[in-house]
């Protein structure tokens, strides 16, 4: 059995109803699942020696703000990039989160590497990870408000550093 089929069967049986759909684009296989099933799926990956999916390559996020067709499914997409060392195969697990209070369970208890990756997603995209030991800013300065990678965050906007002792400081660049 090809590895794709084995993987498909495995994910289908582990997440059950939480499975939404799968997509193949340019040979990259992605599975969309509901967010609540993620941690159990990852635990199942770690427990299964035959699949050998122990390597979480990356976590990243996409903001669909401004794409009305995509917004219906949820504004934020979180992408988990898994790799099987045994089968030399990469695939993606994707979840969609709503615009209000985007929140998902943290993978840090399972994968150490998720610690910084989730902090980065939180810092730049504002998605919070429940159960993360230290969900703080990592790349942007502590004073910076907002999450710069969101599509509604203006590209060249700079937060005023000095208020010039005025209640209403001038906007530097907008």
């Amino acid at each position, binding site marked *: 059995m090809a590895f794709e089929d084995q993987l498909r069967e495995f994910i289908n049986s582990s997440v059950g109803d939480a499975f939404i759909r799968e997509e193949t*684009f*340019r040979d*990259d296989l*992605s599975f969309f699942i509901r967010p609540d099933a993620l941690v159990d799926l990852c635990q199942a990956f770690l427990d299964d020696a035959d699949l050998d999916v*122990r*390597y*979480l*390559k*990356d976590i*990243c*996020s*996409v*903001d*669909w703000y401004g*794409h009305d067709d995509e917004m219906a499914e949820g504004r934020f997409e979180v*992408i988990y*990039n898994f790799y099987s*060392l045994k089968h*030399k195969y*990469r695939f*993606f697990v994707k979840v969609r989160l709503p615009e209000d209070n985007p929140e998902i369970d943290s993978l840090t208890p399972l*994968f*150490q*590497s998720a*610690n*910084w*990756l989730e902090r*980065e997603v939180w810092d*730049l995209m504002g998605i919070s990870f429940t159960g993360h030991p230290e969900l703080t*800013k*990592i*790349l*942007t*300065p502590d004073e910076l408000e907002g999450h*710069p*990678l969101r599509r509604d*965050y203006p*590209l060249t906007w700079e937060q005023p550093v000095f208020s010039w002792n005025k209640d209403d400081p001038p906007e530097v660049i907008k």
Partner: protein
Amino acid sequence: MAIEEKDLHINMGPQHPSTHGVLRVELNVDGETVVRAKPVIGYLHTGIEKTMESKLYYKAIPCTDRMDYLAPMSNNLGYCLAVEKLMDIEVPDKVKWARVCLAELTRLNSHLVWLGTHALDLGAMSMLLYAFREREMILDIYEACAGQRMMSTYIRIGGLAKELPSDFDKRVRQIIKEIPDRIDDYETLLTNNQIFINRTKNVAVISAEDAINWSLSGPMLRGSGIKHDLRKDNPYSGYENFDFEVPIGRNGDAYDRYLIRLEEMRQSLRIIEQCLDGMPEGPFRAHVPGVVLPPKEDVLHKMESMIFHFKIITEGFPAPKGAVYAGIESPKGELGFYIQGDGSNKPARVRVRPPSFINLAALPALTEGHLFSDVVCAIGSIDIVLGEVDR
């Protein structure tokens, strides 16, 4: 280990010579032992991912140079491969061969700087001078190719920026001739040097199991004995045509990573030689009207080519809706580009999987519970470039 009141809090960096840029490490030490090490990053954050979202696909290439500035060609290659995958472009063989050659030169370049600075951190001043002398030869080739020594932007979507220089073959063969002896010289200086061995052996150890759990890649992963190299496992840009070995370590310590990087330099030279010997003839760009720039000769004489040229420069090209990921084995580890196209001429999202960032995250695992003086060795053996960590 728990932090207690008697622990001394030391702030290392961001202006510290052995943090390779602007890395700050908050250290709690109990006597000579590190209780807690917490890397603090972000001093160099320039929002490259955000910037790339606002640019046409081909205009984002210069941003990639500025991430890992010691390996510009690898970054160009990773980004261009991702866009080519998104646009479904197949490039000519000559382009693949030339890209492999340049990517391997970049690996040499990056490893030379690593070797020089790592040895300098451990007190071997002369290595830095030797390594930078050899690196100069590689930078000269970059300059001949792209006109720039560091920020080359030479690899473009669908091909190269221009034809390889006429003396490319001669210059690269000079490197193949000279550098193997120089690598042997480095080995006589370091490999059996008792001071170097004492500073690196059994220092910054990470087991294979932990290395995977921390998602390490590149020499950091291979040092722990896991044979995972994207050039072999998921070949890209024609790497399946080349004959080379993937060195792996046994102990997962700084000394093994040093040996691996030296061996990788030798293997890179092997690949470069095969590239030069088998370099196919052909155009230096793919023929994809509307996406890849047409040859300059045609732009000057053919109406249609001129229109394409004008349109690509001014409004770019629309990419299909879909997400692609292209990962390459950069000198630091797996460098990946995740690009989400949305049907317009700008990407909806460009995500860089930064190898340095993910490898640096494991610094606490390498240093906690070990000697304070080994922190410098651990940072050095990870091989970070802060431009890429912070992006």
